């Protein structure tokens, strides 16, 4: 096989690092890939060891009613995915089978379930925190992880439709949220250096939808609410965001009614690790075969 003319994704498939499913952005993960993900998970846990964050892991779906309240559809309708299921009669079932057999549209009769695919790991967290009532004076700190979905099919292996996001979320006073984000910007540099990844940190914006979105994005940038740790994967001109550092001000606190110990609306901040993107960055920069990776990187990931 010609290595030079194959894309990075082709080479990942050829070596069984990822497995093709026939849908762009939806892949099976091989043993080497998962070993890297597990190694990074442990490394991230060690980074945050002294913080005593409360660990919560989420399934890839969230409560549809809470998703609706979250406002995600205002800003990112193009990325959302909903779970639908068959709820018809036997007659409807026969029509459905008929449509599948004839290559017709069989999904029209599916009804929305109470579940939507989680768009970001922290979305299901806020309502849980809100339900507990007023925060303690030290605020809240959470270590969360979820498979997330974003509908943006692409041949770029770093733009998957389903991927894992590990996050730390800080909920409390504005200065608690701000110092949390500052400390993670520092840690992230050390993390990327340990993994020997070329990187830089830059101000960023979320992919808000439409003209209203253009304004939201510009406002987010002007206020420097989002930073990303960028690593070149598919291109040097457009490096891939592998981590993000977000300050939501009181957006989620207000939306979910989360109050600090003194009764003020809580501010929130989160740091997100795109686990698949970080793993792909490692495969890109250190090679498809993890046996050939630098000893220090292998040691950091306990490979």
């Amino acid at each position, binding site marked *: 096989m010609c290595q030079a003319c194959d894309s990075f994704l082709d080479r990942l498939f050829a070596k069984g690092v990822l497995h093709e499913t026939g849908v762009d952005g939806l892949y099976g993960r091989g043993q080497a890939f998962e070993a890297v993900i597990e190694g990074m998970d442990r490394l991230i846990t060690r980074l945050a060891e002294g913080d005593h964050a409360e660990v919560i892991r989420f399934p890839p779906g969230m409560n549809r009613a809470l998703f609706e309240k979250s406002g995600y559809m205002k800003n990112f309708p193009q990325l959302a995915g909903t779970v639908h299921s068959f709820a018809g009669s036997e007659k409807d079932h026969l029509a459905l089978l008929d449509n599948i057999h004839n290559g017709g549209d069989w999904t029209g009769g599916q009804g929305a379930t109470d579940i939507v695919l989680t768009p970001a790991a922290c979305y299901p967290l806020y309502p849980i925190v809100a339900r507990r009532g007023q925060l303690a004076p030290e605020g809240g700190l959470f270590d969360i992880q979820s498979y997330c979905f974003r509908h943006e099919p692409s041949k770029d292996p770093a733009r998957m439709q389903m991927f894992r996001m590990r996050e730390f979320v800080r909920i409390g006073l504005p200065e608690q949220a701000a110092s949390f984000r500052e400390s993670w910007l520092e840690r992230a540099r050390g993390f990327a250096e340990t993994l020997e990844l070329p990187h830089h940190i830059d101000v960023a914006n979320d992919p808000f939808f439409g*003209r209203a979105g*253009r304004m*939201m994005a*510009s*406002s987010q940038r002007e206020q420097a609410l989002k930073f990303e740790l960028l690593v070149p994967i598919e291109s040097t001109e457009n490096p891939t965001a592998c981590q993000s550092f977000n300050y939501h001000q009181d957006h989620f606190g207000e939306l979910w009614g989360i109050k600090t110990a003194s009764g003020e609306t809580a501010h929130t901040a989160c740091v997100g690790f795109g686990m698949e993107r970080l793993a792909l960055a490692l495969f890109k920069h250190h090679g498809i075969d993890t046996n050939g990776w630098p000893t220090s990187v292998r040691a950091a990931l306990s490979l």
Partner: protein
Amino acid sequence: MLDTIRRLVDEQGRLAVAAEAIGDNADLYATGLTSFAAVQLMLALEETFDVEFPDRMLNRRSFSSIASIAGCLHELKEAA
């Protein structure tokens, strides 16, 4: 024009104070205008004044005060 802008700020801005009490050059964000309310205000301005803000005006600055909104609208009306 300023009166109409103030009416839309009252309707869309969700501010704690009446637009009447806000100076032309006062910072609307400092008065409590959120990013999302600014978007709603932008859409209402477009409909009321029958203009379309070009991309270069779709930023925080353009909607930061009643005077800056009026400035954008003047520019668009003159160009039309």
